[in-house]
C-alpha cells in the first residue's frame, strides 16, 4: 500500500496509471479533499490530474465516488467552481439511498476540500436526526474548526461566519429554559421541582457555600429535577433511587415531558424538550485543549464517549488543560451544548468521582428487586484509579451503556458536587518535613543511668558544649538527591532575592 501511495504522489506517474492507482487505493469511496492540492504542491501538473480525472469519470457508466470526488477536487484546484459544484452535487446525489457512513465520507470530502461551512450545514442536518452518531459528530468537530479558522482569517467569509454564529448561539437553550420555567410557574409540578431543590440544599446545609456556589448548586439541582421529578410516582420511589429512575423509560410526568406534551407548547420547543430529556448526557468531560476553537473536544472518562461541545464563555475562561467538567451536555439543533451548569474538577478529583459513579452503576445493576439500595461509600479522593488516563486507550462503551452511565451520573451529580466542595473545604493535613502528621509533643521519658552519654556518642546526636544537659537530635539523614535539590532551591531563592554572589558550599 505504501508503494502505491508513493506512486500516486510521484509527479512522473502517467495519467492513466494514476487513474488506476486511485481506483485501487480508494476502492470507490471519496478521496481526501486536499488530495489534488497536495499533488500539485508535490510537482504534478494540473493537465495530468485533469487527464486522470477524465479517464476515471469515463471508465464507468456510473462514476464511482472516488472518480467524482477526485474530479471535483481537480476542478476546484483549477478554479472551475461550476464544475466542482456539479461534481459535488453528483457525489451527494449518488449515495442518497445508500449507507449513511458513505454519505458522511462525501461530506468529509466537502469539508476537507475548502467547503467547511457547507459540510457543517450538512452535518447539522444529520446530527439533528441522530445526535448520537459518533462519526458525524467527529466530522462536525473537524468541519466547524475549519470554518472557525476560515472565519477568523477572512471577515468576508459569510457562510463560515454564519456556521460559527449558529454554533455559538445559545438562544435556543435559553428559550427552552425560560419556556419550561414559565410553564412550571405556579403549578404543582413547579412546586415539586422547588421542593426537590430545597431538599438538596438542605442536605448540604453543613457546607460553607459562598453565595455564588450555593446558587450554582441550586441550579444544578433544579436542572436534574426538570428531568426526574414526577409527583405522580409512588412515594417510595425517592429521588435517589437510581434503579427506579432508570427502569422508567417513559416518565411522562416529569417537567420536561409534561412541557413537551402540553398542547400550548410550540412544536420546536416541544421537540427541544424531548431531545433534552432523551439525550442529555451527564458525565465527567475531560478537556484536553482548553482553548475553544470554537468548541471543545471532550471525552467522558467514564463511558469513553467523545463529543465536540459548545460551552458558554463563562464556563471555559481560565480553564487549565486536563480540566474535567462534571455536568450535562445536550443536543440542540444538531449541536452538543453544555447546559452551562456544572463543576470544574481537577484530574485527580475526576478520577475519584469516576470511581464513585462506576460504583453507583454497578450497585444499581446488581441490586435485587425490592431490596433497598446500598448507601454510597465516600468518594475516594486521593486514591482512585487513573480513569482519566485509561480513557485514552479503552474502547468507548456501547451507546446503551453510555446512556445508562450518563443517567447514573445525573442521579448522583449533586451528591458528587457537594462532596467535591466538602473535600476542597477540608483543611489540608499539616505535616512536618518528614511528611508525618504534625503534632507538637512534649514528653518526659524515664531512662536508665548513663543513657544520655550513650546518645551523645551517636552521630545523629550532639551534646551542647556550653550546656551539657542539652542534647540536639539531628533526626534522619536527608538522602543525597533530596539534599541537592533543597540546596539548589535555597541558592535559587537567594539569587532571586538579589544575592548574586552566593556559591554552593563544598561538601555535604
Amino acid at each position, binding site marked *: 500500500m505504501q508503494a502505491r501511495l508513493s506512486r500516486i504522489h510521484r509527479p512522473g506517474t502517467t495519467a492513466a496509471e494514476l487513474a488506476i492507482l486511485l481506483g485501487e487505493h480508494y476502492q470507490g469511496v471519496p478521496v481526501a479533499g486536499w488530495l489534488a492540492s497536495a499533488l500539485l504542491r508535490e510537482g504534478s501538473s494540473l493537465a495530468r490530474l485533469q487527464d486522470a480525472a477524465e479517464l476515471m469519470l469515463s471508465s464507468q457508466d456510473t462514476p464511482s465516488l472516488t472518480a467524482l470526488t477526485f474530479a471535483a477536487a481537480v476542478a476546484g484546484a483549477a478554479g472551475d467552481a461550476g464544475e466542482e459544484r456539479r461534481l459535488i452535487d453528483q457525489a451527494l446525489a449518488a449515495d442518497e439511498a445508500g449507507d449513511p457512513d458513505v454519505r458522511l465520507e462525501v461530506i468529509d470530502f466537502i469539508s476537507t476540500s475548502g467547503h467547511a461551512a457547507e459540510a457543517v450545514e450538512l452535518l447539522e442536518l444529520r446530527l439533528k436526526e441522530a445526535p448520537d452518531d459518533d462519526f458525524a459528530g467527529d466530522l462536525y468537530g473537524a468541519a466547524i474548526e475549519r470554518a472557525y479558522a476560515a472565519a477568523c482569517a477572512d471577515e468576508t467569509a459569510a457562510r463560515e461566519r454564519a456556521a460559527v454564529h449558529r454554533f455559538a448561539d445559545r438562544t435556543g437553550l435559553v428559550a427552552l429554559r425560560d419556556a419550561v420555567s414559565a410553564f412550571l410557574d405556579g403549578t404543582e409540578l413547579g412546586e415539586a421541582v422547588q421542593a426537590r431543590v430545597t431538599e438538596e440544599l438542605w442536605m448540604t446545609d453543613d457546607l*460553607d457555600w459562598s453565595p455564588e456556589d450555593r446558587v450554582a448548586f441550586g441550579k444544578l439541582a433544579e436542572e436534574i429535577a426538570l428531568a426526574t421529578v414526577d409527583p405522580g410516582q409512588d412515594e417510595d420511589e425517592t429521588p435517589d433511587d437510581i434503579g427506579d429512575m432508570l427502569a422508567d423509560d417513559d416518565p411522562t410526568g416529569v417537567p420536561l415531558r409534561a412541557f413537551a406534551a402540553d398542547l400550548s407548547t410550540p412544536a420546536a420547543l416541544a421537540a427541544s424538550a424531548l431531545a433534552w430529556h432523551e439525550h442529555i448526557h451527564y458525565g465527567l468531560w475531560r478537556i*484536553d*485543549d*482548553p482553548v475553544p476553537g470554537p468548541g471543545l473536544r471532550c471525552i467522558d472518562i467514564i463511558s469513553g464517549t467523545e463529543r465536540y461541545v459548545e460551552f458558554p464563555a463563562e464556563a471555559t475562561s*481560565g*480553564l*487549565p*488543560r*486536563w*480540566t474535567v467538567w462534571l455536568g450535562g451536555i445536550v443536543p440542540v439543533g444538531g449541536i452538543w451544548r453544555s447546559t452551562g451548569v456544572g463543576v470544574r474538577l*481537577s*484530574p*485527580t478529583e475526576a*478520577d475519584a468521582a469516576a470511581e464513585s459513579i462506576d460504583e453507583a452503576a454497578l450497585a444499581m445493576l446488581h441490586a435485587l428487586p425490592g431490596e433497598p439500595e446500598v448507601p454510597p461509600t465516600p468518594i475516594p479522593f486521593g486514591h482512585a484509579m*487513573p480513569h*482519566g*488516563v*485509561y480513557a485514552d486507550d479503552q474502547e468507548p462503551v456501547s451507546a446503551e451503556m453510555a446512556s445508562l452511565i450518563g443517567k447514573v451520573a445525573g442521579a448522583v451529580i449533586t451528591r458528587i458536587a457537594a462532596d467535591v466542595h466538602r473535600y*476542597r473545604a477540608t*483543611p*489540608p*493535613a*499539616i505535616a*512536618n518535613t518528614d511528611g*508525618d*502528621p*504534625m*503534632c*507538637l*509533643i*512534649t*514528653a*518526659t*521519658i*524515664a*531512662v*536508665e*543511668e548513663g*543513657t*544520655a552519654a*550513650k*546518645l551523645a556518642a*551517636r552521630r545523629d546526636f550532639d551534646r551542647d558544649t556550653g550546656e551539657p*544537659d*542539652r*542534647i*540536639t*537530635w539531628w*533526626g*534522619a539523614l536527608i*538522602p543525597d*538527591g*533530596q539534599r*541537592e*535539590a533543597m540546596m*539548589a*532551591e535555597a541558592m*535559587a*531563592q537567594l539569587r*532571586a532575592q538579589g544575592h548574586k554572589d552566593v556559591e554552593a558550599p563544598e561538601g555535604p
Partner: protein
Amino acid sequence: MLRVRGREITVEVNSQQRLTRLLDILRKVGGNPVIASEKRIDPAQDFAWASGPRAAQGGTAAAAEGWEKFWLDAKVPALLDRTPRQAARGRERPYLEAMLRQFEYEAGLLAVDGKTGIDTAWLREQLDMPNDLAD
C-alpha cells in the same frame, strides 16, 4: 532538642512518628525508656485554611537542579513506591501519567495568578512521556 535531668529526658518533637523513633533509639542504647508524662498540641485545631484547590507550586530553582530533578528518582507512594523513572517503564505508567496531568493542571491554575507550577514539560522530556497535544 532533648534536655537531660538525671535519669529523665524531656523532649520536644513535632510528630508521633519522631517520638516513636526516639524511643526506638533509646531502647537500642539500653535506655529502657518509659514515658513519665506527655503533653500534646494538635496545631490543626487552630488553623483556619482557605478553601479551594491547593496547587503544588514549583520552586525557584530550575527544574534541572531543583525539586523536579530530585522527584524523578524519589520513591513515590502514589506510584506504589517506585520512582517516576521506574514507573515510566513499568506497569505504574498510567499512575505516573495521571500525576503529570495533575501537575500540569495545577500549573495552569497557578499561571492564572502569575505563579509558576511544577515544570511538567521538563519532567515529560526526562521521562520520555511526550505531551500529546504538543507532538
